[in-house]
């Protein structure tokens, strides 16, 4: 019995963690994306352990980043390892602020991606599989949310939340920015399910009297899993865009370490005071790199769910499962 549990554990480990990772790493693009993304995760973890001084220190305002300090050779009293990305107009450490803001942004956007995908999947699967009245009703709801301009709606909700004196909470923000996002995914999954429903293997399962849950989750879902995974990534990048945009516009409670607030801060700085272009460039680069890392990662996800590529990596895992089953008998 102990052996079986170990084998099963190994199977799950290979099936869901090691093999997908091997596929991602074997693809140059998704490997680059993964490395970049891990960099951001490391930044977020670093942010959890440091203390960032957010008070005003005019004496150390506008210290340029280390690279510029080294290139231009400006003699300053600040050692090179201090403020690697420079300081802003209040003398706050930019790297520290970026690090502090990374964790809530990643949490909120990944959570929003998850909500979007799960809601979209449930609606799409139900509408496509049941058909008839349920399909028409669900698609009507989907149409309603597809027709709302999403960001203006999020802004209205955000401002109403501000009015109600709500505090910043990553999960609440995630819920706000996935109010309309699921609709497009639901529609796409529904049309895929409609196409899959008439496939021979689904009809066979139905004529064999398989329970609905089996048909939906074992026959249909694996065929749209790749699409869902890709859309999880794209929903996440969409959520990063929306959350940062809402902070940029001031539609969520202001918090100086949020990237959107920092972008706004840097922009106003450059346009009103003049110096501090490096601050703007750094925030823009951080945002752009985070988005690109997700896009690059999506290249590998496509392959994880591609049966031809899977086969190469998953044979050993399947063998473990077979062995476990044999041992059980």
């Amino acid at each position, binding site marked *: 019995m102990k052996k079986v549990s170990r084998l099963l554990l190994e199977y799950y480990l290979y099936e869901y963690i090691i093999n997908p990772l091997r596929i991602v790493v074997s693809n140059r*693009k998704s490997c680059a994306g993964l490395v970049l993304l891990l960099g951001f995760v490391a930044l977020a973890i670093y942010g959890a352990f440091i203390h960032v001084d957010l008070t005003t220190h005019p004496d150390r305002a506008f210290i340029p980043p280390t690279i510029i300090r080294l290139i231009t050779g400006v003699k300053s009293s600040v050692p090179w390892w201090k403020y690697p990305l420079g300081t802003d107009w209040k003398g706050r450490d930019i790297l520290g602020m970026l690090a502090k803001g990374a964790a809530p942004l990643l949490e909120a956007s990944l959570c929003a991606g998850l909500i979007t995908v799960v809601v979209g999947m449930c609606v799409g699967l139900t509408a496509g599989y049941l058909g008839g009245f349920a399909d028409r009703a669900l698609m*009507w709801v989907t*149409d*309603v949310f*597809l*027709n*709302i*301009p*999403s*960001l*203006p*709606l999020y*802004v*209205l*909700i*955000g*401002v*109403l939340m*501000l*009015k*109600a*004196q709500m505090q910043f909470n990553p999960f609440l923000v995630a819920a706000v920015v996935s109010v309309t996002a699921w609709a497009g995914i639901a529609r796409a999954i529904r049309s895929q399910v409609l196409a899959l429903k008439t496939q021979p293997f689904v009809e066979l399962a139905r004529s064999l009297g398989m329970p609905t849950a089996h048909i939906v989750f074992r026959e249909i879902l694996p065929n749209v899993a790749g699409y869902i995974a890709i859309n999880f990534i794209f929903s996440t*990048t969409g959520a990063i*865009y929306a959350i*940062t*945009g809402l902070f*940029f*516009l*001031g*539609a969520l409670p202001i918090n100086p370490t949020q990237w959107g607030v920092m*972008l706004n801060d840097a*922009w106003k700085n*450059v*346009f009103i005071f003049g110096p501090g*272009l490096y601050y*703007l460039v750094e925030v*823009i680069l951080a*945002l*752009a790199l985070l*988005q*690109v890392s*997700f*896009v*690059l990662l*999506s*290249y590998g996800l496509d392959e994880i769910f591609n049966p031809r590529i899977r086969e190469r990596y998953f044979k050993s895992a399947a063998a473990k499962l077979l062995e476990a089953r044999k041992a059980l008998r």
Partner: protein
Amino acid sequence: MGLRISRHRDEIIYILKKLGLALSILVAIITLVFVLIKTLPGNPYQMYYYQLLMKGYPPNIAKSYAAHYAQQFYKMMASVGIVANESVFLQYLGFLAHVFTFNFGYSFYYKQPVSQIIASALPWTLLTVGIGLALQFSIGVAIGMVLAYKRGTKIDSIATLAFMAWRAIPDYVVGLAILYVVLVYVYGGNAVEVMGVMSPSIKELLETKGLTLQTLGPVLIDIFRHAMWPILVYTIVGFAGWALSMRSTAVNVLGEDYVTVAEARGLPDRRIATRYVGRNAVLPLFTSLMISLGYAFGGSMFIEWLFNYRGIGFWMADAIWMRDYLVLAGCLLVETMAVVASVYLAEVLYGLIDPRVRGT
């Protein structure tokens, strides 16, 4: 006459059915906005009073402030048909009636009806967003066609990767970069030449002399010179998505039998690319073009705010700082109406062109 109607019965039924659907969607969205507005505190007097007390105001001053605030609040709500002391259903009916007559209430911050703000702002947004969308769509579709013909080559894979990455870059970031470069390197920091809908000198000219034949030329040129930058941002930001969509639909069409037949008939490649592949691949994109109007409105909030361009997006972004939710709700509703109307038009046209769509 009877014959003619019966000949077009299918089409007419289709148009009416779609109209009913569009109206029901509109009513649903208005209901959603009503529910959102109703989440505001039911008793503004108490809420504001306690807020002021917590801020350390003496009770008698807090009381008078809160009373004033509550009075303004009830007036504001009444201006969109949400009359206090009425039942929720009557409030809802009042709100519906106000919205369907384009009456979005009164903005106490800007001291004018919201519909007036929107009427003065809407033309600018439609001008820039409309041209921007048309440009990004046509450029994207052209590039997508080229990529579909070059599928499987090195250029295709590099361009696909680059476009996918580019599509994920936020528009406000691109807008900021363009604004900075244009402002500093092209106009040498002269903000009025880049920002706003027109330069102050031209505005003065327009106000003193009015729109005559002499002023028409300079005014139009100035308007174009200012609208150019938001349009440029919309175009640069959005074309990549269309190129990717067009690439995938065109690749599907290229595998169709009728394309092979056209090639076998020895038709010129140009004709096949435009008449056979292009037309059939573009058709499904039109509905998403109309839906993307909603995204473009979202982007216009950032771009118009950055460029100080007094369109709808600008007023929305401005109203955020003022917490003026009637302006926000009014702008949202007008934008929704625009999206619903254009999606409806696209679907009706699509259904008339392609009878297969009508069945579903």
